[in-house]
């Protein structure tokens, strides 16, 4: 297993220079998008094309016209597969809120079936807004071809919105599921676009579109309510111009139907195009080769080991040197020809870089007779894997192709017995604290697209021994517009009116409201009750114990206030051999709902929730996770998560949960689903740090399929130094 991964990941074939150097040496790949459409996809203005983005690109486009304000996030998940998530303010439509506009989420997928080749154009098939309420629902087949190096033309057939025949939206439907039976139905019409690249930065586009910007709702009483989006129906011809600047930006202006003017802005990031691909961290201390045997006969003989002061002095020196590299030397075992160090990497996103730097420092600190280096990676106190290297190989292969040292090393489960490991003095107990500001953002709420809260937070941890940690935090809000509020009032309880919310007082006064009329306990839909506290709150206060009962089994027990809304006990075990892409886990939690003041009181709701999980790391950086079990509301079901992980630490994932709650019991959205994004901060700044910017965009905070948000689940904790991720990042070994 290890060898085949090594071969595929390290013995990389020669790749186009553009991959390495980024902008400046751009290689003309004919079918990469020239500009983004108003839907945030490669396209003309409103119509799609068969173009793609460079694989892995993550972009955002904000597009505004009298018809709509669309905020789009696009991701090129595979070379052929483009996905977009859209949050739109559609003008001119009224739903139950009667605002004259609606906020609407939509999701698109496009697949490029064939690439451009000779006379054959590139061809793509797409579904637009195929989940949810369907204002933009439509499907298409489109072909795109370069006519001259500057001029590119697309033509296609569209259904639904793209044919000017918008789908009738069922106002009683909870949405959120794919309306497959409508796909490619209702009659098709052609569309077309032409774009011309004026120069490196400017492109102009003209298109023929059939979109009439109309929406129809089927009301509860059977009537059909049709709205014109914006002020009037547009004509068929649209024109636009786009201008690129900087490495990542694009601005555009367009005219829809000759009269309605719009503007858009795009930022696109490619994980492969870091500004500082090799990082700005200081150069590592070079290998120090051993002196000749006759120059240091005592060191080579191992005689030094007889001296009881030798190990403490060596350990102190190595620990100080490692500290300069952001590595904590937890413990060390030293014999005349073998040394094991347990290091905790606090700096580098690639564990291989931490291991490579540690190996070089070991050549500088250890007597010549030590030939075997065992570098055990500790995941916050839990040894997760060991890399064994021969010192002669480290000396021989310094600054050569990273694959050579990989082939000369061995990865194994960390030895279980502590044996002669000596803890580094004065390291534990370890008390860490931090006081700082926090900014809490709430995005994509249908009624308030952006909510925020600013305040101060104090956070401290006390690690008694490696793996036994007391953690606490306290937060004080300063200001913000995240106020306390009860959950939405079900229409059935409110004379058929949707969109009203209980006030905090109403909700507190009537405990029966903590269960929905369908009988589902409110485990997440009243999350806003925890917001807006003006007195200090305790987001978490836990005692966690991490251990490794056998070489391949990890365990975690966490007790205390586990998260904002729940406290109790959480226990987890994980089977994850260091050389296996497959893992199994089980977690069980007994938790009680916390009171809304965010302190030590609890409410009445108590539940046992838990899952059994299977994890698999596929090639190409895809990881899959399946969780089956009982969720917070007592509903039973399963969650499927698929994540694309780039070698440099970027992660983009999607998950969906279906439980035994019916779509009606679940409410709007029908089932829980969402997207997770995580970008290492070092990618953007070049400075070495393990910190990440992460977010989860989920459909709606609902009660079905909700999980406990306990910190430090084992899987992501132990994986960094294990086979797949370690070898993915092995290129950084000599970094």
């Amino acid at each position, binding site marked *: 297993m290890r060898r085949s991964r090594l071969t595929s990941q390290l013995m990389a074939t020669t*790749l186009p220079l553009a991959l390495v150097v980024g902008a400046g040496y751009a290689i003309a790949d004919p079918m990469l998008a020239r500009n983004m459409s108003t839907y945030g996809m490669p396209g003309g203005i409103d119509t799609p094309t068969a173009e793609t983005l460079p694989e892995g690109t993550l972009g955002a486009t904000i597009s505004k016209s009298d018809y709509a304000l669309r905020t789009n996030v696009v991701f090129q998940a595979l070379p052929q597969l483009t996905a977009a998530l859209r949050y739109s303010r559609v003008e001119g439509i009224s739903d139950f809120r009667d605002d004259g506009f609606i906020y609407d989420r939509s999701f698109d997928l496009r697949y490029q079936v064939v690439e451009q080749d000779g006379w054959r154009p590139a061809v793509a098939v797409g579904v637009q807004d195929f989940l949810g309420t369907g204002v933009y629902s439509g499907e298409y087949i489109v072909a795109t071809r370069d006519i001259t190096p500057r001029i590119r033309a697309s033509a296609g057939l569209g259904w639904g919105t793209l044919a000017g025949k918008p789908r009738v939206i069922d106002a009683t439907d909870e949405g959120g599921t794919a309306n497959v039976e409508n796909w490619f139905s209702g009659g098709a019409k052609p569309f077309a676009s032409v774009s011309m690249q004026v120069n490196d930065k400017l492109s102009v586009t003209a298109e023929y579109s059939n979109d009439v910007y109309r929406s129809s709702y089927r009301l509860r009483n059977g009537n059909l309510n049709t709205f014109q989006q914006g002020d009037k129906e547009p004509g068929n011809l649209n024109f636009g111009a786009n201008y690129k600047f900087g490495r990542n930006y694009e601005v555009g202006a367009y005219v829809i139907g000759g009269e309605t003017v719009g503007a858009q802005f795009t930022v696109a990031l490619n994980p492969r195009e870091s500004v500082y691909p090799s990082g700005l961290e200081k150069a590592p201390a070079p290998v120090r080769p051993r002196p000749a045997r006759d120059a240091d006969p005592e060191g080579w003989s191992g005689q030094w080991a007889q001296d009881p002061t030798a190990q403490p002095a060596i350990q102190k020196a190595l620990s100080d040197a490692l500290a300069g590299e952001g590595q904590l030397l937890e413990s060390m075992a030293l014999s005349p020809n073998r040394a094991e160090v347990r290091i905790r990497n606090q*700096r580098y996103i690639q564990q291989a870089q931490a291991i490579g730097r540690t190996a070089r420092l070991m050549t500088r600190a250890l007597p010549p007779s030590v030939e075997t280096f065992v570098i055990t990676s500790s995941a916050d106190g839990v040894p997760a894997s060991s890399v064994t290297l021969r010192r002669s190989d480290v000396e021989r292969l310094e600054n050569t*192709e990273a694959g050579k040292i990989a082939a000369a090393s061995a990865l194994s489960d960390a030895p279980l017995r502590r044996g002669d490991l000596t803890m580094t003095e004065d390291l534990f107990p370890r008390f860490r604290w931090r006081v700082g500001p926090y900014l809490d953002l709430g995005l994509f709420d249908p009624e308030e697209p952006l909510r925020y809260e600013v305040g101060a937070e104090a956070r401290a941890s006390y690690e008694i021994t490696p793996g036994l940690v007391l953690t606490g935090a306290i937060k004080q809000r300063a200001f913000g517009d995240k106020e306390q509020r009860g959950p939405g009032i079900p229409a059935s309880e409110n004379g058929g009116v949707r969109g009203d919310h209980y006030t905090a007082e109403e909700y507190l006064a009537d405990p029966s409201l903590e269960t929905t009329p369908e009988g589902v306990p409110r485990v997440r839909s009243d999350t806003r009750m925890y917001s807006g506290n003006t007195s200090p709150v305790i987001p978490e206060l836990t005692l966690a114990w991490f251990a490794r009962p056998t070489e391949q089994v990890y365990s975690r027990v966490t007790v205390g206030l586990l998260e904002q809304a729940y406290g109790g006990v959480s226990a987890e075990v994980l089977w994850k051999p260091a050389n296996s892409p497959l893992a199994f886990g089980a977690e069980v939690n007994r938790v009680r709902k916390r009171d809304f003041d965010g302190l030590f009181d609890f409410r009445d709701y108590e539940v046992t929730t838990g899952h059994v999980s299977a994890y698999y790391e596929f090639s190409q950086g895809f990881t899959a996770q399946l969780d089956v079990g009982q969720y917070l509301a007592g509903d039973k079901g399963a969650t499927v998560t698929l994540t694309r992980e780039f070698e440099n*630490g970027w992660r983009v994932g999607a998950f969906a949960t279906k439980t035994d709650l019916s779509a009606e019991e679940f409410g709007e959205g029908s089932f829980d689903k969402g997207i997770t994004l995580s970008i290492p901060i070092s990618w953007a700044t070049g400075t070495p740090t393990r910190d990440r910017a992460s977010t989860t965009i989920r459909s709606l905070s609902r009660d079905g399929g909700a999980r406990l948000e306990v910190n430090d689940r084992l899987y992501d904790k132990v994986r960094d130094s294990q086979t797949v991720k370690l070898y993915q990042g092995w*290129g950084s070994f000599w970094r």
Partner: protein
Amino acid sequence: MNKAHGAMALTLLAALAACSNQGPDEGGSTPASVLARTVQQAVSARTADPAPAAAPKSAQERVAEALRVNPGPLIQVGFEGLGRTQIMAMTGQNGAMRTYMTPAEEAVILRDGMLVGTKGLGRDLAVAEPGTEALIRAGQSGRGTRIMRYLGGDGLERPLQFDCTTGPGPNPGVVVEDCAGHGVTFQNSYMVQGGQIPVSRQWVGPGLGYITVQTLRP
């Protein structure tokens, strides 16, 4: 958010951005804190008095000082892409391979004057495998393949292969190496003396361009 709140937010962020007993490696680096740090740095950079302008040292003075302070091998490297010239001291030797570093711990690695790699410069050359090395040291004309490996933005080490020819340069004692591949051409020049290369101009890569290397003390 009104103005008072905005000002308060900035004050809060600025005042609280870095108050802890943790090292820089231990978390707390959120997008907001990175922003706050950047703002802080920008502000302090603007308010800081420029250092009293010491008379800039001439290149010769700097070389003389470096030779005086440093007992070991020294080279002077001009980074053409970065627009600066630095004196670098040897910090390690592994066989014929020597690591030279700037005071800011950026490294250039040479094997008897032939460029092997760079570190700490952001767009480093991970390792060069010049198949032309023997030809160059012997001052001979010929053909060879040069592989240059780079760490890509995605974290993978990528080899780029170039076809190279070597031959005599315009001046006696100089060997030039012309390489082409991947739509790029570059020319390395080496002054060869007894198999050693005391002076050279070598291409590091698309990000850094050329460096000129001059041996101050072998």
